[in-house]
């Protein structure tokens, strides 16, 4: 069974802090994704990666960056956290011809 693990379930950070959200998958999937979920907006894609050291912008990349140094790990970075980045962040991975598998999410609050 695919396991996608997000390092934190809850985070509280101050405005202006640099924030790292970590995600690890154990199925050797090529593709990894970061989404955020907000009420009434569904899941919106921030960034994705289809290989080590490769990254592509999603629909809402502003204020975020990512890092993929190893195949199993995909990190989301908030360079300078702002209150409008308070959200549920979901990491996902996907192999060839398979559906997305999600982690349990990180609820980030920026105060």
């Amino acid at each position: 069974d695919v396991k996608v693990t997000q390092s934190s379930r809850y985070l509280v950070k101050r405005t202006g802090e640099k924030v790292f959200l970590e995600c690890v998958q154990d199925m050797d999937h090529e593709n990894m994704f970061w989404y955020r979920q907000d009420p009434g907006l569904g899941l919106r894609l921030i960034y994705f990666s289809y290989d080590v050291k490769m990254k592509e912008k999603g629909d809402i990349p502003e204020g975020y960056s990512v890092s993929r140094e190893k195949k199993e790990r995909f990190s989301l970075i908030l360079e300078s956290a702002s209150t409008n980045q308070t959200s549920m962040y979901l990491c996902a991975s996907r192999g060839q011809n398979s559906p997305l598998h999600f982690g349990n999410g990180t609820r980030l609050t920026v105060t």
Partner: protein
Amino acid sequence: DQQVKQNSPSLSVQEGRISILNCDYTNSMFDYFLWYKKYPAEGPTFLISISSIKDKNEDGRFTVFLNKSAKHLSLHIVPSQPGDSAVYFCAADWGTSGSRLTFGEGTQLTVNP
């Protein structure tokens, strides 16, 4: 520009009855559609999918119908159970693996005992 829309934020049904969740899309390039279910404090889990070459796919109590001419799909759950209470997301995709899903806003389904 919302390419995948779920116009009903919530739906309430009685246990044992049918639940019908709807989804509309605008991009005619989409050729693969999925439904995900999400419980509170958990990530979404894959439920069922359908390719654009089909108009129906069934898996136990869950059936997805696709109407390409209307750019509409629906998820039917029969019979509905209280454990089905969750948020359901419709998603659409095109092309080969590595492309990215576009999700709808979600519909909160509540099944009352």
